[in-house]
Each structure stands twice: as structure tokens, then as C-alpha cells.
């Protein structure tokens, strides 16, 4: 269980100059309703209150949105409300042009990683009551913004694809004899965490190195490779091939163990640990030839 999600943030209301950006007309209407409270409320007292959202807005085509701004929304709080619920409410009730990706609402599709109060989080997995107000919601940093909270994920997908993310076994036995490959429960346990990745991109966005070096494979892709490299069902040769991909210049060595990825991963995957293990594997492999 990710403790970082449950802990209330103790962050001051940001003084970002951009933040005083124009209120959207819709939000103003709301404010006219007499619900202006800029100060953070205690979670227990939220019931029946409104939540103050500050949402990043940008649209390359629409005048007035070309220059990024923050819009304020005040949405009525309900018990159990998540960040995703709150932006959906804002969209459906106040401004239908508010754009973000979302689908499953249960932390499996990985569509809705946002930058919430200064941290990469899944909107659907973050309780509003755990956050300081106003809740600042932005698109993932280090990815280009397509519109509002939607970022361009292509680079992330490219990196995922670079590590040859598919099972490779040359001598797969014929399928029709209905015999599965054997795998020990221990080995399955070893790759368990790594197999949970939902491609949300939070880790990549949080990693400073990935931000600086566009070619760095990044924690998610390395973790994906880990899943295969550590799976005993794939032979030694393929494992070596995988390590060769990982130990290229922009591979595992780029990781400077900043741990941000591990901290933000909504699936609690020990990313840094996996990357470090692969570094050791790669060194071990190379030492053999010395």
C-alpha cells in the first residue's frame, strides 16, 4: 500500500505567478454562488463543503487558451471523492471543454496520471480529502502538453517498445500438446511486482534524468525489461540479449537512483530496486569476460 498517497501533503499554497491566471467564466459563476474559501479545510470538515481546484488549461487552437493559465473550479465535496471525480464534475457541470484522459476509474488503465499538488498521481486513486487545498492539477511534467491535462505519450510508448517488451523463446513447444512451460512459484513471485505496470507514465515524468536525456529508457521501460529478464521461462541467451539492450549508453546507467519513480508509482513497483538489480546483473555478466 502506498503510504505516500495516504499522507496529507504539507505543502503551502503555491505562489506561482502563473497561478493568478484568469478565472474561467464558469468558475466565476460558481464563486458568485458565494463559495469562496481559499484556505485548506480539515478533511473531516469537508463534508458538505466545496473543493477548490486550480486546473491547468491550454489549447493550441483556442484563443485565450493558447497562453497556459490556471482555472479555478469549486466543486461540492462528497465522501470518497477522488481527484478524477472532481475534474469530471467540473467538466460535466461547468466547462465541457476541460480535457483529460480517463477510463477505468479504478487504477488499472493508467490514463489519468496528473501532477497533483506537486506530485505525479493517478487522479482516480487519489482521495481529495488527503490533499491540501486548493488542489492544483496539472498535466504530467516533462511531457509535451497536447491540451489541458492531456500530454503526448508517444515518447513514453516508444521507450516501452525499445526494450522488446514481448516474451521471446525460440523453442516454444508446440501449443497443441497442451503443456505449459513450468515456472516456480518463487520465480513468479519475483516478477510479480514488475508485471503490475499500467503504463501511466508517472515514473518517467518524475525522473529528472529522463527529463534531461530524452533517450534514457526510463524506469517504466527498464522495469518492463526486468519482468522478462527475470522470468526463468526465457532462456539464458535471451536474457543476455535483454541485458545488452539495457546496458547501452542510455540504459540502466543513466539512473542516478533518485527514487522519485519509486515514490510516485501508483502500483508500488520498486522501480529503483529493479533498475539497480539489472545494473548488478549487467556488471556480473561483463565481469565474466574479464
Amino acid at each position, binding site marked *: 500500500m502506498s503510504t505516500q498517497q495516504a499522507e496529507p501533503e504539507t505543502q503551502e499554497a503555491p505562489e506561482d505567478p502563473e497561478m493568478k491566471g484568469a478565472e474561467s467564466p464558469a468558475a466565476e459563476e460558481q464563486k458568485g454562488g458565494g463559495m469562496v474559501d481559499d484556505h485548506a479545510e480539515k478533511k473531516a470538515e469537508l463534508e458538505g463543503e466545496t473543493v477548490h481546484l486550480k486546473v491547468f488549461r491550454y489549447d493550441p487552437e483556442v484563443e485565450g487558451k493558447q497562453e497556459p493559465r490556471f482555472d479555478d473550479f469549486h466543486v461540492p465535496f462528497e465522501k470518497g471523492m477522488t481527484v478524477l471525480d472532481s475534474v469530471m464534475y467540473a467538466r460535466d457541470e461547468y466547462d465541457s471543454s476541460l480535457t483529460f484522459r480517463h477510463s477505468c476509474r479504478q487504477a488499472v488503465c493508467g490514463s489519468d496520471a496528473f501532477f497533483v499538488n506537486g506530485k505525479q498521481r493517478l487522479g482516480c486513486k487519489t482521495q481529495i480529502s488527503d490533499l491540501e487545498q486548493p488542489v492544483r492539477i496539472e498535466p504530467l511534467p516533462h511531457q509535451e502538453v497536447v491540451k489541458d491535462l492531456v500530454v503526448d505519450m508517444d515518447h513514453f510508448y516508444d521507450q516501452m517498445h525499445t526494450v522488446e517488451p514481448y516474451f521471446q523463446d525460440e523453442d516454444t513447444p508446440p501449443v497443441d500438446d497442451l503443456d505449459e512451460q513450468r515456472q516456480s512459484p518463487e520465480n513468479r513471485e519475483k516478477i510479480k511486482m514488475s508485471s503490475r505496470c499500467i503504463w501511466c507514465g508517472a515514473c518517467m515524468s518524475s525522473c529528472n534524468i529522463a527529463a534531461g536525456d530524452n533517450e534514457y529508457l526510463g524506469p517504466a521501460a527498464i522495469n518492463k525489461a526486468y519482468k522478462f529478464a527475470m522470468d526463468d521461462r526465457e532462456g539464458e541467451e535471451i536474457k543476455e540479449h535483454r541485458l545488452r539492450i539495457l546496458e*547501452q549508453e542510455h540504459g540502466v546507467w543513466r539512473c542516478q537512483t533518485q527514487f522519485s519513480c519509486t515514490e510516485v508509482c501508483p502500483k508500488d513497483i520498486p522501480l529503483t530496486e529493479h533498475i539497480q538489480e539489472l545494473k548488478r546483473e549487467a556488471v556480473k555478466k561483463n565481469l565474466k569476460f574479464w
Partner: protein
Amino acid sequence: MAERYSSFTPGGTGWFLQRVTAAFLVVVLAFHFFLLHFVNHAYEITFLGTQARMENIGYFLTMVLFLITATFHGVNGVYNALVNQGLEGTQKKVVLAVLVIASLALVAQGTYVALTMRGMI
């Protein structure tokens, strides 16, 4: 992205040596600090004192090795840091060359100094 496969420059060796030198440095650097700031105080340093220590071949060799590892560790660290920030192509080659020359010079100069201290030059 396929062209990446051809440009293998495994960074493993550098990474590994950085750790090995670090492990070595912990010991020597602690020793160095302790000896020259706590046992002998820095302000009391004289050429005679230095010379006396350097006469000991073990100490001398340790110091030279210290110099070499520290230089490698430091320069390699700087190089990696720059590469991590996205240094590419010719620039990268130039930086590497400059760093190599600087460290060679540093080690040469340092060894020369150590030898004079030992009174061998």
C-alpha cells in the same frame, strides 16, 4: 529507434569502477583527513613532516594510488554528470579529451610532487 542497437557503448565499466574507486576512497580519504587534520594538524605541516611521512614507501604508494583513484573517480563522475545532462556527439568527444588530458596532467603533476617530497627528485 532501431539504430540504438548499433550504438552500443556499454556504460557498465565506468559505473562499476566508479563504485570500486568510491569504496577504496572512503577508507583512504577518511585516513587522510584523520591524519592531516586530527593527528597532525594542518597548520603544523612542514616540509620536514611531509618528507618524513613520504619516506615510508607504503604511505607514499597509498598517496599516489589515492591520487589516481580520486582523479579517476572525480573526473569520471564529472564526465558522467555531463553526459547525463545530454552531452552528445563532438561536444562529448571534446569534453572527454579535455577531461582525460586534465586528469593525466593532474596525476603526473601529483606524482612529481610526491616524488620531490620523498626527496627522490
